[in-house]
């Protein structure tokens, strides 16, 4: 079985992490590896853009939990579940910290060069976001790979 065949399957990866910034890199490495399962290599520019956007959004989600939900506590847990299908990724992030209301966070005014308050904007710009407050809070980020043969019309031409 070639690597392309193996990567076309659906898969679920689950990791439990501490809600501390030192564990952010572990979460992002797992998500980065999962992005490779979404489409077989070689990866074109659409995949690289997809990968950059998914990593950016999940990184901001992780920061938000550490900084806002757990507010500096070092014993909070994050349950990360990454679901991949051909052309699509879904990341569920559960935490047991303070909830928030995404609708109450104002959008940044980019022309004023804001130095903070950009995290949620980055998440929502790069991925579809759903949030359910509770015990645990559940943040779901999903993204479709543009022009993937299983999810969209095939491109007219392959890479040259």
């Amino acid at each position, binding site marked *: 079985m070639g690597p392309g065949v193996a990567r076309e399957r659906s898969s679920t990866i689950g990791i439990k992490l501490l809600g501390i910034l030192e564990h952010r890199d572990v979460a*992002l490495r797992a998500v980065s590896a999962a992005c490779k399962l979404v489409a077989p290599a070689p990866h074109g520019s659409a995949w690289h853009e997809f990968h*950059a956007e998914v990593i950016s959004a999940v990184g901001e989600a992780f*920061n938000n939990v550490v900084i806002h939900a757990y507010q500096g506590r070092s014993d909070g847990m994050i349950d990360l579940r990454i679901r991949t299908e051909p052309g699509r990724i879904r990341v569920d992030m559960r935490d047991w910290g303070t909830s928030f209301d995404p609708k109450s966070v104002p959008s940044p005014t*980019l022309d004023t*060069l*804001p*130095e*903070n308050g950009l*995290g949620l904007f*980055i998440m929502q710009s790069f991925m579809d976001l759903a949030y359910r407050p509770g015990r645990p809070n559940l943040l779901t980020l999903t993204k479709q790979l543009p022009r993937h043969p299983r999810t969209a019309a095939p491109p007219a031409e392959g890479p040259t």
Partner: protein
Amino acid sequence: MKFQISKKEGVTSLTIEGQLDALTVPELRAELDKLVDHTPPQVDVDVTNLRLIDSSGVGALVSLFKRVRAQGGKVEIRGLRDQPLAIFKLLRLDRVMGGISRPAAEASKTSKSRA
């Protein structure tokens, strides 16, 4: 994250490599504060080997840009690519901060062709 600061003939060069994020940015911020206190009029920031940046890292660079500009200076960021480029484009920093999205190699090619 690794960074290096050097000063030569009125230009401060700052090179940042690796990951600039909420975990690593406090170390850089402390140095940027010192740099802004005694800054030459131009700061060149090379991010060719910056692999990842988050909103905290962007905040530090935007703060540097604003403070240097307030003193009449200029900050130019070069070598943006991959994930850092996606973030800068989304936040429209490439429009606001002139020359920010030119990769170092491309910038050097342009200056050579103009020479």
